[in-house]
């Protein structure tokens, strides 16, 4: 698998560390309530298809990257710097 870092270009998967679904970018407010926090901490989609994930370019420039990929075809559709994906 190859992932395109927005800064470094296309790199081998071994340079990246996998964080998980990109929910960390939408962290709820402290007072959002138990249900919202329960969903944020524990409940994850498990889609057969397009998914948004956070990857860390650990063996490279150190950027956090939002990777949109298809879990069925393994196709990588989009990569963007996490701070830009958030704003």
């Amino acid at each position: 698998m190859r992932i395109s870092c927005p800064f470094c270009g296309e790199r081998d998967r071994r340079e990246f560390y996998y964080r998980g679904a990109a929910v960390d970018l939408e962290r709820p407010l402290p007072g959002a309530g138990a249900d919202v926090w329960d969903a944020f901490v524990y409940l994850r989609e498990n889609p057969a298809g397009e998914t948004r994930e956070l990857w860390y370019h650990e063996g490279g420039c150190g950027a956090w990257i939002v990777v949109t990929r298809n879990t069925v075809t393994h196709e990588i559709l989009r990569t963007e710097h996490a701070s830009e994906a958030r704003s």
Partner: protein
Amino acid sequence: MVNLIAKSPCHGILPITIGSVTLSEEDVGVIHSVSPYKGQKKALSVAMKSAYGMAYPAANRSAGKAGARIVWFGHAQAMLMGPEPNRELSELAAVVDQTDAWAVVRLEGPAVEDVLARLVPVDLRSTSFKRGHTARTLLFHMSASVTRVGEKAFQIMVFRSMAHTLVHDLKRAMEGVASRS
């Protein structure tokens, strides 16, 4: 009064030559990381250009020569190697002394690309990685900075604590390439 003796990261283990490739330690002088403050990148670039003749580098690029070099090091970070940063620089960017934190070596020789091809998962051949190009990538299992500084010469930087591992891994790759030539 104790007399302290400064030791370089690869003291006592370099230089070595195996086959056509030589690995030696680089004394680059002081090293500072330069991280531009928000919205100051352009002003910083202008200030650096007038002070050192080198602009702030684009991603995957370096500038300068032995003694005064600037190397892109990641998002909003570059390493200034050689010159002492002036006051103006620290008004436009976070400037942090990194001199003792990095081991810097030079790998040089006709088969240098073959040696690095055994360790680095990036195409470093001159067709795609020219003089002045730089990459943050892996060298075997280590996070490294690799810069082409000459036609057959690369500058490699790893954390100082990894200096002996770096030399060991490069030496093994150099031996492998030499034994097949």
